[in-house]
């Protein structure tokens, strides 16, 4: 045996010695944990590297720390939340240590409210446009023209119409996804497998029942996917609105940082925006899998 081995090139020897080990894995569960383990490791490495270089660059004095403060400094600002209130930006008074939390809640509230309203309204209007053909013919051309207007472009109008407050921000999110999602709804409805519709009709479904019991469940997963993709646009729109007019929330904190020439505050706000946005997307993905319970996880 050893003789044979030595005649095989080095790299192939390596492979053959690795392969027999793989079959005795610890089953699906173990493999899943392993997967989580490695991905957590890469996350930590990547983040560590990024922060490390940043800290190094500032420690060496290559950049002006007034403009680009090192991470440990601006993260420490969390303990110093009173300053978020400094120029009286209207953050609710909840005691010094919860100001940041209030800002997060304010932003989340706007995004979620806008998304839910937009989702429901888009499915409603899209459904009506397909159900009543005339209604569709009257509305869809206009919607098609309004859809490409970026959510951010609606901010000035929203502030003019609703003043500076929750409703302006919610409106921006709503309008940012409503048109696109309405078009997507119409498209998804037109693509529902005719087989399902025929099946339901043969089983005695009325037109309304086909709509609610077949078409709606068939399109919701698609629409949810599109909602998730458009979520980031809505998220950015709210932050932008908070910077330019709606004077509360995470966007406002960043803006206050700039106004006070406090880069630490600015970067803290940006970091929180990043983390919260990421967590929201993770939450969305979880929710999407719930909505898609009937598809094998491989298909998602």
């Amino acid at each position, binding site marked *: 045996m050893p003789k044979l081995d030595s005649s095989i090139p080095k790299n192939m020897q390596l492979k053959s010695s690795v392969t027999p080990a793989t079959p005795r894995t610890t089953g699906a569960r173990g493999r899943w944990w392993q997967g989580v383990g490695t991905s957590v490791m890469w996350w930590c490495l990547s983040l560590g590297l990024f922060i490390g270089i940043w800290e190094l660059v500032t420690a060496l004095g290559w950049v002006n720390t007034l403009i680009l403060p090192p991470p440990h400094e601006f993260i420490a600002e969390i303990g110093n939340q009173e300053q978020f209130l400094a120029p009286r930006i209207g953050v609710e008074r909840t005691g010094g240590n919860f100001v940041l939390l209030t800002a997060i809640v304010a932003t989340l509230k706007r995004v979620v409210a806008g998304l839910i309203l937009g989702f429901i309204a888009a499915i409603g209007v899209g459904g009506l446009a397909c159900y009543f053909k005339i209604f569709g013919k009257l509305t869809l051309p206009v919607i098609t023209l309004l859809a490409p207007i970026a959510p951010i472009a609606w901010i000035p109008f929203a502030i003019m119409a609703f003043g500076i407050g929750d409703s302006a921000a919610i409106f921006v999110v709503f309008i940012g996804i409503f048109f696109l999602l309405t078009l997507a709804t119409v498209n998804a409805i037109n693509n529902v497998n005719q*087989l*399902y519709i*025929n*099946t*339901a*009709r*043969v*089983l*005695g*479904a*009325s037109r309304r*029942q086909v709509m609610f*019991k*077949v078409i709606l*469940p*068939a399109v919701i997963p698609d629409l949810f996917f599109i909602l998730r993709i458009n979520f980031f646009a809505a998220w950015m729109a709210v932050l932008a609105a908070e910077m330019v007019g709606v004077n509360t929330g995470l966007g406002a904190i960043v803006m206050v940082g700039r106004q006070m020439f406090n880069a630490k505050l600015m970067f803290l706000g940006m970091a929180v925006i990043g983390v919260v946005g990421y967590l929201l997307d993770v939450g969305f993905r979880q929710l999407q899998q719930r909505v898609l*319970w*009937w*598809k*094998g996880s491989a298909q998602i």
Partner: protein
Amino acid sequence: MSEIVCDRISKIWNPDTNEANLAIDDISFSVEPGEFLVIIGPSGCGKSTLLSMIAGLDTPTSGAIRFRDDVITEPSPHRSMIFQQASLFPWLSVIENVAFGLSLQGLGKRERQQRAKEYLQQVGLLKSANRYPHQLSGGMQQRACIARALCLGTDVLLMDEPFAALDVQTRHQMQKFLLDIWQGTGKTVIFVTHHIDEAVYLADRVLILTANPGRTLAMVPVDMPRPRDMMSKGFDYHRNLFIEHLRSEVVKAFEEQELAEMFDTRIK
């Protein structure tokens, strides 16, 4: 009184356009209650078209189809269609799929699931009641579709090549299973296939259609006791009879397609 009567029906797809296509041309036949009629014909001869008109999903361009003397204008739970691809709703569990027709009639969850269970038992799927369609095999899915139709108390089962997507063994099991159901319930069945053995194995009578457009080529009774032995002389006789009938038609259909393709490529 006949269960289904097709009275000189024709179907033109996209009439009044330059894509007008005569799919069914002047077909008449009737089906008796409890009869097992099989329709065979070359691909594209209009079998599916015919069946979907009997289901009420489409209307004939001329002529009339009657169900117990009432002209068919729309689908009804009296006539249930089983499609080639299993058509269970993927977002519903198997039992809710079977109970779907009952839920349309507004039956409460407890009641309809109870009734669905009876039929799941009948098709041997009780154990899979709470699974989802993607967790079932193709044969199991088709059985669930049959249970769904039976659950509504349907009178006529319209089956459009329901076993075509199954492997040979499953297919034969499903044929036996269907005969059992049919003999046990006395439903009327109209069954489309282009599998000749399947036709001989199942049918009381076989309607053979011509290639494009579909016309009646022959209506042949299969007078053999069931269960039928595929090796028997009678079986062989019918098999050869149908092959002979179909050969000329298949050749014709094929030639037409080839001609059309040649024509297409020349234009390009």
